[in-house]
C-alpha cells in the first residue's frame, strides 16, 4: 500500500510539474493599452510576468529592479535585440519598437527570471 501511495504521489508530482510549468496557459495578463507597463524585478521574478500589448504601437517597459542579485542585472527581450542593464531601486525605461503580433520572451541573463510579452 505504501509503495502504491509513494509511486502515485511521485507520478502526480511529475504530472503537476509538467502542467504547472509547461502546459498551463495563463488567462489574465497585464494589459498595456497606454503603451507603458511597470515591471518589478524582485525575489527571482518579474511582476507581471505576462503582458499583453496591442500590435502596431511602441511599448515602454518601465522596470524597477529591487533585487541586488547580479542575476537580475540585465533584461533581455528575445528577437528584438534588447539587452538593458537595470539600475537598482530606480525606474528604468526600455523602449520597444513597434512589434509584429506574436510572443516575445523576456528574461535575465541566466534565464531564471522569465516573462512573456504577447503582442496581439
Amino acid at each position, binding site marked *: 500500500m505504501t509503495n502504491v501511495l509513494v509511486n502515485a504521489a511521485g507520478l502526480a508530482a511529475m504530472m503537476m510539474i509538467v502542467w504547472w*510549468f509547461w502546459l498551463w496557459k495563463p488567462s489574465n495578463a497585464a494589459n498595456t493599452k497606454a503603451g507603458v507597463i511597470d515591471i518589478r524585478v524582485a525575489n*527571482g521574478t518579474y511582476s507581471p510576468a505576462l503582458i499583453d500589448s496591442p500590435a502596431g504601437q511602441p511599448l515602454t517597459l*518601465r522596470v524597477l529592479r529591487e533585487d541586488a542579485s547580479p542575476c537580475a542585472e540585465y533584461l533581455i527581450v528575445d528577437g528584438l535585440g534588447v*539587452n538593458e542593464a537595470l539600475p537598482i531601486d530606480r525606474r528604468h525605461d526600455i523602449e520597444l519598437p513597434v512589434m509584429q503580433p506574436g510572443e516575445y520572451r523576456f528574461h535575465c541573463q541566466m534565464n531564471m527570471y522569465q516573462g512573456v510579452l504577447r503582442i496581439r
Partner: protein
Amino acid sequence: MSTQIRLIIPAMTCAGCARKVRAALEPLAGVSEIAIDTAAKTVDLNIDGEDPTAVMMALEQAGYPAEADSGTAPEACRMNDPLPSDHLPVDGMRLAITGATCASCVRSIETALSSVPGVEQASMNLADHSAYVQGAAKPEQLIAAIEAVGYGASVAADDDSLEQERERSEQKLYRRLIRDTWLALGLGAPLMAWMLFGGSMMVHAGGISQLVWLLVGLLTLAVLLVAGGHFFVGAWKAAVHHNANMDTLIAIGTGTAWLYSMVAVLAPGLLPEQARHVYFEASVMIVGFINMGLALELRARGRSGQAIKRLLGLRATTARRVEDDGSEEDVDIALVMTGMRLRVRPGEKIAVDGVVESGSTLVDESMLTGEPMPLSKQAGDMLSAGTINQQGSLVYRATRVGKDTALAQIIALVKKAQGSRPPIGRLADQVSAVFVPVVMLVAIGAALVWFNVGPEPRASYAMVALTTVLIIACPCALGLATPMSVMVGVGKAAESGILIRQGAALQTASELTTIVLDKTGTVTQGKPSVTELFGYADWSRDRVLALAAALENASEHPLAFAVLEAAKERSLAALDVSDFIAENGKGVQANYQGGVARIGNLRWLADLGIDADAATADVAGITEQAGTPLFLTMDKTLIGVIGVRDQIKPDARSAVARMHARGLKVVMITGDVRSTAEAIAKQAGIEEVIAEVLPADKALHVRGLRDKGERVAMVGDGINDAPALAEADVGFAIGTGTDVAIESAGITLMGGSLHGVVDAIAVSSATVRNIRQNLVGAFLYNVLGIPVAAGLLYPLTGMMFSPVIAGLAMSLSSVTVVSNANRLRFFQARPAKEVV
C-alpha cells in the same frame, strides 16, 4: 502570397537615412527584398499579403513617414546622425524632481522653470519624475525655482552615482551572504563532525535521541529560515508565476531533507527502522555552501565589470568655469552646461566635450582611442571628456555634456554590448530556459527508481537521490557561461579603443577568413602630402613650391591642400599671381610676372604642346611609388614637378603581416587606377587588389567574396564605406576618434592603426574560445553530475553522492565559470614582440 510595393519616403535624403530606413524595415516579419533608392527617395520591397500598414508604421516610428505626396524637402542629415529613437538632447539639463504627484504639479514645475531667466524650454516627465530644461540658466537657479513652489529637485543621477549605488547594494548583499554562510555552516559543521566521527544520525523512537533531534530540527529550521529564507521566498514567488529557478531547486532540496528528517523525528513509525535517518546537517550545509558560492560569484563578477569602472573613472568630477568677467570657479561636473567656457590646466582631465577657444597644448587621448601619441590641440580643435591635457592651459567651450559626451556614449555602448549574446550561447539559453523543471522531473524519477528497486533503506536512498539531484544541478553555470565571457571580452576590447557593438560581431570576428581593406584612410593616411619636388630650367625647388602654392591657393582639391601644407611647412613667402582660371579636370593657370603660370596634369601639358621629356625619369619614380605628379609650367616651359602621395600608415605593413600570420586573406579595395593601387598594396604587403571600383560597387565586391564562401570583414572609414561595411560579415569602422556613433559597423576602432583590426580579431577569438570552455564545462558538469547524483555509479561502486558534496560542487561550478571568464582580463591582444 507576397506583394511588391514601392513607397516614397520624402525624408530620406542620404545614405545615412537609407541605413535607418533599412534598419526599420529589416526586423519586420514578412518583409523581404528591400531595395532603397536614395536619389529617388523610394524603397521597393516585398511584403507578405497586401497590407503595408505595419511597414508604414515602422517607417513612421523611425522618423521616415512613407507618404507619396509629402511636400517639403527635409533637412539634410549625415551618415552618423543618431537614429531618431535614440536621439538625445544636445544641450540642457535633466533634473530629478521629488514631491510631484499629478498633472497640476507638472504645470507648476514647468511654469516655475520657465520663469527662470535664460530658460528657453522646460518640460517635466511625471513618469520618471524628471524635468528637462534647455537654455542658459544655471542649475542652482533652476533648483531654487522648483523649491520655491514646494517641490524638491536635484541634478539627475548620472552613471557614476548609479554605479556607486550598484556597488553599495552588492556590498550589502555580499555581507548578508557571508553572514548567512557562517550561520549555516556554524550549525552544519558540528553536525557533520558528529556524523564523520561516528555519531549516530538515526532516531530511536522513545529515546533521548528523539528529543535531541527534535531540538536540532527546530534549530535547523530557524537557520534555514534566516540563512536560506531568500531561497524559499524566491522559489515560492517563482512558482506562483509558473516559473522555476535556482531557488526552486535549493528550496525543494533542502526542504525535502528537513521534512524527511522531521518525519523521522516526530513520526518514526511511518518509516522502516533503518530509514529513520536525519539529514539536518545536509540542509544547513547546502544552504551555507550555496550562500558562499553566491558571495564568491558576486565578488568575481565585480571584477568582470572593471572595464566599465575604468571608463567611469575617466570622468572628471569638477570643471573650472570661466565667467564673462574673466573670474574662474570650480563647479561640480553635473552643473556644467553646454556653452559654458571652461579652463583646463596642465595635467588635468578634460571635463566635457568642447571646442578650444584659446591656448594650445598636447592632449593624451590614449585612454579612449588606444592611440599612444598625444595630439596637438589649438583654437577650433575638438576636445573629448576624459582625455588628459598634458602641457598648456586651455580655455574651451562646452559642446556636449553629461550623457551626450563621447565618453558617456562609449560607456553606454560598451554596457549595451556587454549584455548582448552571441549565437554560440543559443543552445545554453534554450536548455537553461527549461532546465529547472526537467531537473525536478529527473530527481523525482530517480527517487522513484530507488524507492522501487533500490536496496534497503529504500526511503533513505530515495530521499538522498532526490535531494542530491536537485542540489547538484546548476543552471547558473549554463546561464553564466556566455554572458560572463562576453562582458569581460567586450570590456577588454574597449580598453584598447575597440568598441564591439554586438555579441554576434564578436563571434563572427573570430571566424573570419578574408579581410577587405579600403585603401584611402585605412591602408593609407587618407591625406596626400608632397613627397617629391623637382625644379627645371633653373627654377629652385623652393621657388617651384612657392609658385605652385600661389596657384593652388584657391583650390579645394586634396592635392592642392598637400601643396599648400608643404609650402607652409617651409615658411615660403606667398607669390603674387593674378587672373586665375581653373580648367576642370586639367589644372589651374594664372598670370605671374607677365607670363602664364600653370599647374596641372600631363594630359593638359600635351594638349598645350608643352614638352615634359626633361621630367620623364622623375615622373616614373613618382608613379612607381603610387604618387601623382603635378606639372608646373611657365608659358611653354616645364619648370617643376611635384610628387604628391597618400602615404601608407607606418604600421600598415606590420599589421597586414599579423593578418597573414593568422591565416587571413587580405584584399585591398579602391577606386584608384590599378597601377597606383598595386604600388600601395605592394608597400603594405597585400597580395590581392580590387582597383577602379566605384564607391557604390564596393558592397558588390564584398558580396561577391561572401558568395564564394569567405567570411569577410570590411575595414573602412564608416562613412563613405557604410554600404560595404554593412554588407560584410563584420564591418570595422577605423579611425573614428571619439565619433563612435557609426552604426553600419559591428566593430568600431577609435584608433587609426590597422593593428586594431587584428587586436579586435584576437580578442574576439579569445572570448569565443573562453565561451566554448565555459559552455563545455557547464554542460559536462550537469550531464555528468546529475546522473552520478541520481546514483548511477551505485551499482558499480556501492557509493552515493552526499547532498552536502553536491551543494559544494554546485556552489563552486558557477564560481568556476566566472573565474574562467575573468582570465580574459589578462589576455594580451598584441604580444610585445609583435609590436612594430
